[in-house]
């Protein structure tokens, strides 16, 4: 037996699982075909936050007069903006390398493939440095992640030039004057927000009836309004029938309720979803159960094959780094026989646009669809002292309580820094709080978070500042 545990993929699911495994005394190896830290650190969460911060600062500079300040016309150097983002990614990538070393986790650089083995599948690695290596472990965790979904039939696929997925959109050579973004999930909206902040004319196309379709309807509505105020254009309920290159850039034909429209721009970003990386890992031969591009797992992330587990994006939605880490930790603790109670934790979701969007738990519509009677509270930032002082009065906090028990079952926020606040509601839900605990908690003044308190009070008709 070479290892107690081999993890395939070093994204936020894999590398965090590896650290936990090492803490629990498991002899652990991690296989990575590209860069330590996976998409999250290198091509996702982190570098986009760097880009968005540049965009946000730049946008604020153009509103300095509102704060009684002034500056000569601000400019940006797009190459440097991207360089900064790459530098941030690199720093964190090296951080993961350090963590692996610190926890004595063997990093095997190469591409892994599974073959039948006992007590867990054997891992064959085509080494980056050349040659092949086979390792046998007691347990294997598949954490191969996911990639941008592409639909080549209608041209929704990166073309190496003007049509991008997140990957090319993150390292563009220049800021396009005009941009089409297909898909209004978090990824689409963040890129739209970034490029708009730098001055691009951006149109976002969404096939479903509203933007950010996983968010609460009130949030979708408010977000669209806020983005339109910033100059973003939207086509909702619009299906892309064809995307292709034109002489000057790209051309997109869409169909909204039978009406055809053609849009043109310098570039387009495809952000229509995610597909799990389930191919070329040897899953078919092992008979691993895969459903719609994702490995099927039980609550401990075990697959149907003995000794094989799958966590994170490859094991299905929500495709979020923190969900992958959470699953990874529980999975490893389960393997080591040290798992705590597996209480399903609500998984918050964040979109780092301007304004920001954050949510946890059920939307009002989801709760009602599940047959629950709800109490809903709302509190707008426009009457929150700190928000007014900061000039960030857009947005609101919305709470959803189960009427029968008073349990907080959902919270939805749009506005400044709400991504930093949502954990408060996540914590409340994980601790199974009712309205009483939210009422009883003292929120510091003056903060934007007071709106969380007020939105809770509002659900019970006790709001103070409205």
């Amino acid at each position, binding site marked *: 037996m070479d290892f107690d545990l081999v993890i395939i993929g070093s994204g936020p699911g894999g590398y965090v699982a590896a650290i936990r495994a090492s803490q629990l005394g498991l002899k652990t190896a991690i296989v990575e075909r590209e860069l330590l830290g996976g998409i999250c650190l290198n091509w996702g969460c982190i570098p986009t936050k760097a880009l968005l911060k540049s965009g946000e600062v730049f946008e604020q500079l153009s509103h300095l007069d509102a704060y009684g300040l002034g500056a000569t016309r601000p400019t940006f150097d797009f190459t440097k903006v991207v360089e900064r983002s790459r530098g941030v990614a690199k720093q964190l990538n090296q951080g993961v390398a350090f963590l692996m070393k610190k926890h004595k986790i063997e990093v095997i650089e190469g591409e892994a493939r599974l073959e039948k083995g006992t007590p867990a599948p054997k891992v064959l690695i085509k080494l980056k440095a050349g040659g092949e290596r086979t390792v046998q472990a007691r347990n294997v965790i598949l954490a191969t992640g996911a990639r941008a979904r592409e639909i080549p039939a209608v041209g929704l696929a990166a073309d190496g030039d003007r049509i991008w997925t997140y990957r090319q959109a993150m390292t563009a050579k220049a800021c396009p004057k005009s941009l089409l973004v297909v898909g209004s999930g978090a990824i689409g909206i963040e890129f739209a927000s970034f490029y708009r902040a730098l001055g691009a004319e951006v149109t976002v196309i969404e096939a479903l009836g509203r933007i950010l379709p996983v968010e609460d309807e009130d949030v979708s509505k408010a977000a669209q309004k806020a983005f339109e105020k910033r100059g973003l254009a939207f086509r909702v309920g619009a299906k892309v029938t064809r995307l292709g290159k034109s002489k000057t850039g790209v051309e997109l034909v869409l169909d909204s309720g039978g009406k055809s429209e053609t849009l043109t721009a310098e570039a387009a970003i495809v952000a229509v979803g995610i597909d799990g990386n389930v191919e070329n890992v040897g899953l078919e031969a092992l008979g691993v159960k895969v459903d719609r591009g994702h490995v099927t797992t039980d609550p401990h992330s075990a697959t149907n094959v003995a000794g094989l587990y799958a966590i994170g994006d490859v094991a299905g939605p929500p495709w979020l780094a923190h969900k992958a880490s959470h699953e990874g930790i529980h999975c490893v603790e389960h393997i080591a026989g040290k798992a705590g*109670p597996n209480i399903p934790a609500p998984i918050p979701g964040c979109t780092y646009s301007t304004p920001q969007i954050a949510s946890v738990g059920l939307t009002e519509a989801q709760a009602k669809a599940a047959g629950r009677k709800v109490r809903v509270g709302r509190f707008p930032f426009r009457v929150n002292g700190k928000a007014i002082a900061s000039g960030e009065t857009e947005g609101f906090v919305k709470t959803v309580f189960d009427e029968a028990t008073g349990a907080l079952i959902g919270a939805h926020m749009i506005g400044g820094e709400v991504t930093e606040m949502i954990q408060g509601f996540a914590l409340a839900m994980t601790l199974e709080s009712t*309205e*009483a605990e939210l009422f009883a908690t003292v929120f510091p003044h003056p903060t934007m978070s007071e709106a969380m308190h007020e939105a809770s009070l509002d659900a019970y008709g*006790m709001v103070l500042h409205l």
Partner: protein
Amino acid sequence: MTDVLMPALSPTMEEGVLAKWNIKVGDTVKAGDVIAEIETDKATMEVEAVDEGVVDAILVPAGAEGVKVNTPIARLKGEGESSSGGAAAPPQSAAPTAPPNTGEQKTPSPPPGTGGGGREADGGGKPAPTPQQTKGSPTPAVNGADRVFATPLARRIAGQNGVDLKAVKGSGPHGRIVKADVETARPGAAPEQGAASTAEPRKVQSLEQMGIPAGSYDLVPLDGMRKTIARRMTDSFRDVPHFPLSLDLEIDRLLDARVRINATLETRGVKVSVNDLVIKAAAMALKVVPEANASYTPEGLALHHNADIAVAVALEHGLITPIVRKAETKSLAQIAVEMKDLAARARDRKLKPEEFQGGTFSVSNLGMFGIKNFASIINEPQGAILSVGVGEKRAVVHGDALAIATVMSVTLTCDHRVVDGSIGARFLQAFKGFVEDPVTMLA
């Protein structure tokens, strides 16, 4: 002023007997000093001071039983610090050896309909009305063991459904009762049901009621070990579907082998017992039939990687099952040495929790008492236990002829949820093979 708390000496320890104090009021202690001895379920352990200071008060007298984990047992003050005076509960009332009826004197649990609510709400759907039970902290620290840990939502749903939280077993972190526990609990469930695992196994009529007059017997108080045996054996015999499989083994060759082995080991001062050979053979047989080295769990059958053999050791007042870990990998000499050490320390009640918790299979041998055949009770969560009888000369039939052989009867008690008859039988076959032809254990 620092309180010394009753330590948890093992993850499962809930209470213990404060057997002995090594300090008295006025003594100066420093970190690492052994200040007391505590008798837990199965072992006596020493308690070391974590802080330094002068002993200000002994809050729990020596000999106190049922001292809950985290109860303050003594108080230290820093050098020069003055005594705590009347601030704390007087030592006498703080002693957890309270009369048995304290349970009824507690603040009554909130009536159904009250939850952990805060303010009263207005408007239509009413959340649970405001309970006032948090006022004035009616529960002194020493009664902390009666405190029910539950999430706010669990409390509220319990109130709405009329579920007594004391009857609910928590599945959350640190045993906290969460929503799911309350939702699966039956309303009005009697506290005894859920509390059975922590309290006396069950209520029976008193001896007097059964016609045995008081004064006609001596009453030996239940110590921690007796309570644990009573609880674990009752739980197992009630909840685990037991069935026995018996087999006779001819052990003449085993006895020969033992003589030769011991002759070889004599210079090393090691003596292998028949039981050591049985341990080794059982471990080897578990590797041949891994399905017998298993535990039933609601999530699946846990097939153990190692044969960690728990061996019943009789003590003066009870028994304990120290474990020979990975017995399949150990030589007979290793097993013999280990077993001797474990048994000696078991008799002195000096085993560490990890030395008697977590075996995967048990062996119990009453051969030394001449017992021919018996069927042990499963040691949960193990899937089987092997009961070993006396090795004695018996008449056997070899071919068509009567012969004399040394025969030992063994009985495997199986948990039918995990070890079916055929699995148990295959295990016994493999075991028989190793015992009757011990050379094969070398293969």
